[in-house]
């Protein structure tokens, strides 16, 4: 079965600092991978998705970027964080068409 690993679990960063969140996948090759953001008490907003190495699609314009340097690695980055980048970031993956997304346990980012 597929397992999604995310780290760190929590992160506090000052405004203007860089960001790098990493997500790795076990149990599936060539998965579709996704980055979501969840504001407190709200639903999930899709930020990026990737269907393969080096292939990134962005859903919303923002201060963030994503990269997929390896098949099972998906990275969320920012060069300069904004206060509005605070939130709960979730990585998700799926191995087959119309199979459920599996989520990691998320990273709680607080920008101060």
């Amino acid at each position, binding site marked *: 079965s597929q397992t999604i690993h995310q780290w760190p679990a929590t992160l506090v960063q000052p405004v203007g600092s860089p960001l790098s969140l990493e997500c790795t996948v076990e149990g599936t090759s060539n998965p579709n991978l996704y980055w979501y953001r969840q504001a407190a008490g709200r639903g999930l907003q899709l930020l990026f998705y990737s269907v393969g190495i080096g292939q990134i699609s962005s859903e919303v314009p923002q201060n963030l970027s994503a990269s997929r340097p390896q098949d099972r690695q998906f990275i969320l980055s920012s060069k300069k964080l904004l206060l509005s980048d605070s939130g709960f970031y979730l990585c998700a993956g799926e191995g087959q068409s119309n199979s459920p997304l599996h*989520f990691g346990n998320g990273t709680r980012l607080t920008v101060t």
Partner: protein
Amino acid sequence: GESVGLHLPTLSVQEGDNSIINCAYSNSASDYFIWYKQESGKGPQFIIDIRSNMDKRQGQRVTVLLNKTVKHLSLQIAATQPGDSAVYFCAENPPNAGNMLTFGGGTRLMVKP
């Protein structure tokens, strides 16, 4: 635009009672639906899914019902337990969206002992 929504943002039930969480979807061509459970500080956890060629699917203590006529999805939890307290999200896979899901806003289920 097309969207997935929920009728009740918060549902409070007594331990041992059955719970019903509802979801309305607007894209009649969606062919795959999923319910997720999210506990505080954790990622969403898959509960059960259903395809559009089915009306009902049962799991362990959970049942998902799909009414395509009124575009309504529900999650029924039997004999609700304190451990069922969480936020529940429905999600749909619209046509022409590949494998991407559209998520509803979530319903918080609170189980009273």
